[in-house]
């Protein structure tokens, strides 16, 4: 099986779907000739032509607004937003239109598309090349939200997202675009939307995590193990709809949970996960669910490694939670 990094896996997935289904079109800033600033769409322009791999004017609102129109027509657009930090000029089209189209039209006008965009910090990107806005989309009814942590899931979830009947936000953790490598099957396979992966079984503490922070959680769990704390690690893969069963099953076993995410703590997705665990496993909780997250500040430049919820910040939370 070929070894790929995330960029190659997503590129392979896009190529496969564009070959399989001519309704799939890619559009965005710099996605064409240069293949995107992260080279995720590299080669697609030459292979499929500028009618299906489209460099657009500099307007996220225009990209998403026209992509919605294409979707209404029956195409399956896969627009790229160059950095998730720049998605907000398109926020109105996404939350007021895309998310509500099927509902408000009584089912007459489903608007199917997949919005790809790199998220997360750790690349010295400062305020505007580092953010993780997932909760700002999960709160909005009508959107599915995905965030893979490895090349296999990236391709498998991309195929599933393109074929899913609903609009999908496809968040790509840019910090591990090239760092995360692994076997990726050629051709056809999907990773189901809505199913988390238990990447490590453990008895003492449940870690809920996704994207680039998975590797920090693993590193912290290794350390914790050395200190006698045995962690179960859940990689959500799909953020919404959440695989609540996998989480609750784990929490019922461990009674202790640590949620990790890069986004600011307040009203981050971690708060929803904690609230749901309260609803569904309150009596199983032996310690307060803990959130290890980015701070409630804009994303800093020089101090980004202090800002991110890296292993060194996750570990103490694991130990404390285990011994609570």
């Amino acid at each position, binding site marked *: 099986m070929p070894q790929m990094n995330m960029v190659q896996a997503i590129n392979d997935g896009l190529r496969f779907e564009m070959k399989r289904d001519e309704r799939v*079109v890619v559009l965005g800033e710099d996605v064409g000739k240069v293949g995107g600033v992260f080279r995720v769409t590299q080669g697609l322009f030459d292979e499929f032509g500028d*009618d*299906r791999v489209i460099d*657009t*004017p500099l*307007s996220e*609102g*225009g990209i998403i*607004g*026209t*992509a*919605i*129109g*294409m*979707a*209404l*027509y*029956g*195409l399956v657009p896969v627009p790229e937003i160059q950095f998730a930090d720049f998605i907000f*000029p398109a926020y*109105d*089209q996404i939350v*007021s*239109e895309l998310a*509500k*189209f*099927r*509902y*408000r*039209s*009584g*089912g*007459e*006008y*489903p608007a199917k598309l997949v919005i790809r965009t790199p998220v997360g910090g750790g690349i010295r990107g400062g305020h505007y090349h580092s953010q993780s806005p997932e909760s700002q989309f999960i709160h909005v*009814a*009508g959107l*599915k939200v995905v965030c893979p942590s490895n090349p296999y899931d990236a391709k498998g979830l991309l195929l599933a997202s393109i074929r899913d*009947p*609903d609009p999908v936000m496809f968040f790509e953790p840019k910090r591990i675009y090239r760092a995360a490598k692994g076997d990726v099957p050629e051709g056809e396979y999907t990773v189901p939307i*809505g199913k988390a992966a238990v990447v490590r079984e453990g008895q003492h503490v449940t870690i809920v995590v996704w994207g680039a922070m998975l590797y920090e959680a693993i590193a912290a769990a290794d350390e914790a193990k050395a200190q006698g704390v045995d962690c179960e690690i859940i990689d959500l893969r799909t953020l919404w*709809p*959440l695989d*609540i069963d996998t989480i609750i099953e784990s929490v019922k076993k461990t009674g202790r949970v640590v949620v990790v995410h890069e986004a600011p703590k307040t009203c981050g997705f971690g708060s929803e996960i904690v609230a749901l665990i309260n609803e569904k496993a309150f009596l199983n909780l032996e310690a307060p669910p803990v959130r290890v997250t980015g701070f409630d500040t804009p994303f800093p430049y020089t101090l980004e490694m202090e800002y991110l919820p890296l292993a060194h910040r996750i570990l103490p939370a694991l130990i404390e939670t285990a011994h609570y």
Partner: protein
Amino acid sequence: MAVQPLHSSAPPVGLASPAHTSDPDVVRVLRDDGSLDPAFDPHLDPETVLAIYKHLVLVRLLDDRLVTLQRQGRIGFHIGSLGEEAAIIGSAAAVRASDWLFPCYREFGAALWRGMSLQAYMNNMFGNSEDPAKGRQMPDHYTCRAAKFGSISSPIGTQITQGVGFAWAAKMRKDDLATLVYFGEGATSSAEFHNGMNFAGVFKTPTVFFCRNNGWAISVPVERQTASSSFAIKGVAYGIPGIRCDGNDLFAVYKCTRDAIAHAAAGGGPTIIEAMTYRLSGHSTSDDPKAYRKEGEVEHWKKRDPIARLRKHLELEGRWDDARQQALEAEVDAKIKDAVAVAEKIQPPSLESMFEDVFAEPPWHLQEQRDQLLKGPRAKGH
């Protein structure tokens, strides 16, 4: 010597409504005496003109009835087209069967002309279980795919960009269709207008931008929307040809729209049409225009009523009279009464329906929320 700008900012002449139709740049066909200017006569066949006239009357009476229903508290809201009927229906009548409409919110006359049933529309006004929008949206926020008519939403301008994307997709697939995108002049200030026009220009999409310049955006007059000399001229910023027409002149609207559609269909790309008309009613049933506009202005425009002007043309041709008018109004009244009676009797949407269509299939959380609601007590007072 001071540098001469490559263009200077023309004063906004002809922008304020009352001046509109005296503007020489404005395409007009229907003369005050009811005759047609041969220069731009679209040569509509008499049957079509008559059919359109009857439809205009239907729309006018429907508007009137809906306002009454709202006053009576039988429906929650109405946003009408009083005074703008010729702009709306003249343009809808000029597109081909293959073309799609992307509406703003005053175009129910266009939806009905394109084949949406009066009953379906009335069901939306009552938000009942047979409302195409399943009672989920406000009145006048409906949808009709069968009529190739889009889904109405409140946020201003969003349909513009979508209408461009739709036309762009058709062009990619080499399908012979264009989109007619409706919006008010206030919407030209929205980001959507900029995005839609810019993408349409760059990608030469088969899109006709139909701007209903009715003089007002709720209480904000046109001079507060732009300092440009017209709305049509905004096309210059996007490499898109623009044209202005008398929006209360059915033939001028029809002519400009048909030409623009033909231009798009021939691969010529988009056009922006500014139809100069006037909102004779308040913005909606929630608005009282007396607070911000002068009666004189309204009087001026009442004299240019698009339906009266078309009737005069038909009368001049001896094809219309009071008797026919009375018969038509009686017939239309009955139709409307029936639709109202039926719509009022139809059940509200089911509780379950509130959780459907958020996604193709309701995920666990929506099933939970639905079941919780169903087993809980019901709300009073609705």
